[in-house]
């Protein structure tokens, strides 16, 4: 039987991976969004805004890594 467990540390790691995936998909999405008829923004502006917000989330993740106590290790 597999008794492997996961806790906050793994959650934080996978959350950061999720943000990484978002960053990876953003360039192509920015172009597709800019191609929509009702969107006036340029791809660069869309990408810039999205990157700033995602950077904020990465910083929050960094703060969580720095200050959260992972005292419940397996």
């Amino acid at each position, binding site marked *: 039987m*597999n*008794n*492997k*467990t*996961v*806790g*906050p540390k*793994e*959650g*934080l*790691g*996978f*959350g*950061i*991976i*999720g*943000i990484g*995936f*978002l960053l990876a*998909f*953003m360039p192509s*999405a920015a172009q*597709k*969004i800019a191609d*929509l008829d*009702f*969107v*006036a*923004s340029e791809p660069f*502006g*869309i990408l810039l*805004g*999205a990157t700033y*917000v*995602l950077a904020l*989330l990465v910083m*929050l*993740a960094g703060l*969580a890594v720095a200050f959260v106590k992972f005292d*419940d290790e*397996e």
Partner: protein
Amino acid sequence: MSTETKAAPRKRSKRLPLTYVIAIVPVAAALNIVGGYINGILKLPIFLDMIGTMVTAVVLGPWWGALVGAITNIVGSFISGPIGLPFAVVNVAGALVWGYAHQMGWMSKNWNFFLVSVLVGVVCSLFAVPIYVFIFGGATGHFSDVMTAAFLAMGQNLIVSVFSSNILVSLADKIIGSYVGLAIIEALPVNLTENTKLPKAEGLNKIIIPVIGVVVGAAIVLIFLALQ
């Protein structure tokens, strides 16, 4: 003479079996995607795409919820177009607020639970409005665009108009999402939810409290519709 000795209280582990996580994360993301899809078909003035995020953020933790939020909008963008992808940050932010509020014990009483739902709605609006305004020019084809147009016609500027319509929609959506999520958490196996600090309900109250929450959210939707 009794030989029984008092055992020291066993410390509850915050760690969960990996199988639970592997089961919950994809199902929660699927729940979000299906909720958003149904909402899109029915053209409801809410989103319904964060119920799974709430369940995961509370049961597993804030960053597992963030992962569910990211997966929801990435996979959703393949299904319903790229419009949803920038809003992934809203889903992630909601997960963090729900998750950390729960960890701090802010969701343990009924009123606090309701206030956290309102807080999530406000935070999600603060993240969503700049995306609406600066990326999409204020409209994405969502039902709330009608109300944004109404506010614009009243002479408000774009940011105020988008915020005014989005905050109503977001509050209703997050209140409904929180209470539907609460009902789902109540239905999960006890060993999975033993670490949760949510309003304690017994018997019929387990159903009545979520129903009241959903009714409050629906009332906000009705106010929204009446204002149009």
